[in-house]
């Protein structure tokens, strides 16, 4: 039981970070970022290149992952999403754009990093063992702690800085924020970059444990969508709840249901449907906000 709970916290902390980035982009731009999983994969590959191949310290490699994704995110927002949102008569057009970007990033990953599964050496050796009731490698604990710290840092950023306040205002009401003198275009770009950066950060953290490959993008996006649906789209607390709930469900499912075959996700989905039938806006979401 302790083991399952620990696994749940470990999975949940990573999932929450992925969901945070997605939900931030959604809240600011009303864009469903299909390319989120691909951004995560790029983050993983950048850390792999710096840390695994060139021997740069891990923290610096993580920083490079964040920076790369922030730049990619800012460019995508400025030159692709912003003009399309302005020029299109239907807001769904951004979904096509997001899907196109997901393909584009997939293509770039394939060309730059290849299709092989990549891993990096462990950052810390050893296994934490509490009486064989709870076994957890030290690197997983470290990653989990780092993930939770990043979430705390992100919330602090959103709550206590000027940028965070501007972003929250933007998410609440775009027009009102503009009227209050918020530079909407600039903060949209910053917000998108921040969301992409979070995806890159998770990728960089997880490459040390699960490794990274080209095919991980799509499934990651789908998981992120599920978390956002559980918690409610566009709400930060919702993304964190969603991430941890999915993490715990997965940990319990793997522990108790694996003997029946691969049905954990089937059950999660069925319960998600029932849940959404009762509460369509998710746990924390505003009704059709």
């Amino acid at each position, binding site marked *: 039981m302790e083991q399952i709970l620990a696994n749940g916290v470990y999975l949940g902390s990573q999932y929450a970070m992925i969901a945070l980035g997605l939900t931030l982009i*959604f809240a600011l731009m*009303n864009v*469903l970022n*299909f390319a989120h999983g691909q951004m995560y994969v790029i983050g993983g590959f950048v850390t792999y290149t710096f840390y695994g191949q060139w021997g740069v310290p891990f923290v610096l490699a993580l920083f490079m992952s964040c920076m790369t994704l922030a730049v990619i995110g800012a460019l995508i927002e400025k030159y*692709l999403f912003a*003009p*399309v949102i302005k*020029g*299109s*008569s*239907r807001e*769904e*057009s951004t*979904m*096509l*754009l997001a*899907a*196109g*970007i997901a*393909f*584009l990033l*997939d*293509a*770039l990953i*394939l*060309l730059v990093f290849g299709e092989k599964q990549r891993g990096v050496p462990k950052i810390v050796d050893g296994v934490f063992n509490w009486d064989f009731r709870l076994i957890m490698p030290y690197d997983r604990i470290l990653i989990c702690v780092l993930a939770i710290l990043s979430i705390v840092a992100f919330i602090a950023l959103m709550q206590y800085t000027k940028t965070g306040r501007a972003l929250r205002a933007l998410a609440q009401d775009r027009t009102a924020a503009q009227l209050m003198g918020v530079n909407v275009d600039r903060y949209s770009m910053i917000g998108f970059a921040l969301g992409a950066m979070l995806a890159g950060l998770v990728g960089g953290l997880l490459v040390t444990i699960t490794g990274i490959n080209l095919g991980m993008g*799509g*499934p990651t996006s*789908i998981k992120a*969508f*599920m978390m*956002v*649906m559980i918690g409610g*789209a566009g709400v930060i607390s919702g993304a964190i709840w969603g991430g941890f709930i999915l993490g715990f469900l997965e940990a319990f499912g793997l522990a108790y249901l694996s003997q029946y*075959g*691969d*049905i954990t*996700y*089937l059950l999660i*989905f069925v319960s*998600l*449907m*029932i849940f*959404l*039938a009762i509460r*369509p*806006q*998710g746990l924390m979401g505003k009704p*059709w906000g």
Partner: protein
Amino acid sequence: MNFSAKQILGVAVFLLVIFVGVPMFIAATGRWDFYFTLTSVALLAIASAGVWLTFYIGRINIGQGAFALVGAYVSAILVVKAGWSFWISLPAAGLFAALVAVLLGLPILRLRGVYFAMITLVLTQVATLTALALPITNGAKGITNIPLPSGVSLFGLTLIPDFGQLENTRMAFYFTACILMIITYAALYRLVNSRLGHLCRSMQQNEELASSIGVNITYIRILIFAISSFFGGIGGAMFGSISQSVYPATFVVKDSVDFMLNCFLGGLGYVFGPMLGTLLIYFGWDLLFEFGKYQLLIYSTILIVVIRFLPDGLLSIRFGKGEKK
């Protein structure tokens, strides 16, 4: 419904091209593989028509792959395990997909916008997982060696020849798929220009308002979702029959996204948009095959450029911006 002379001429030219022009072209150039490509286009266009219809009530549907998979499996199981004729299993597959859509639609159609898009996307993934988990679908091995469609005769008159005995199966499949596609789009056009179409447009604009003036929105959205999934099921069943096999990976999330892209690219305001979109996306992808590993890069770049400069779809070039059907 009054058609202008221009419309009738357009349809006549279109029919002439696909039933006479294409076979002549293929016979002349000897590119027999085009039959398979065009058949796929026709079938995917049927499924895309369904997606377009859900767009028409203002829902972004990324779950058509799930219903295509359901259709493909139902038809395959009925033909292989129950020994039905393919031609009976085809509507059965469509109806079963529609039934699934009604059951799933009751809860999920209450969701809107991005929520609906996300849940339908997850639905596709779940269809694949279900196909892997259920015993009747044979898991990852899938159902293979599906026999070709058998003949149908009425009072000794052969209506549909036995596909297994035809020397040119590809052409037969091509014609079948095209006929199905034409029926689908004729039905779609009729639906859009009927009273139901008006109600759908009212829902696309504002569901609460439509509801307040007495439109039964729950009934209509489930009906539309069922019709949409019926198309998906038919397209999927036919696809399974052509490739003579169904696997859980026959329709995956990528296909669902493609169906959505087909509709977007052609233009959501035009009934024939998804047909054009499917043709361009499928053919474009095939043509880019020569570029090897740069295929996906070029394809996605073109896609992004199109949506960047023509956010309302390709058909909007001709008709000008802002004008809606």
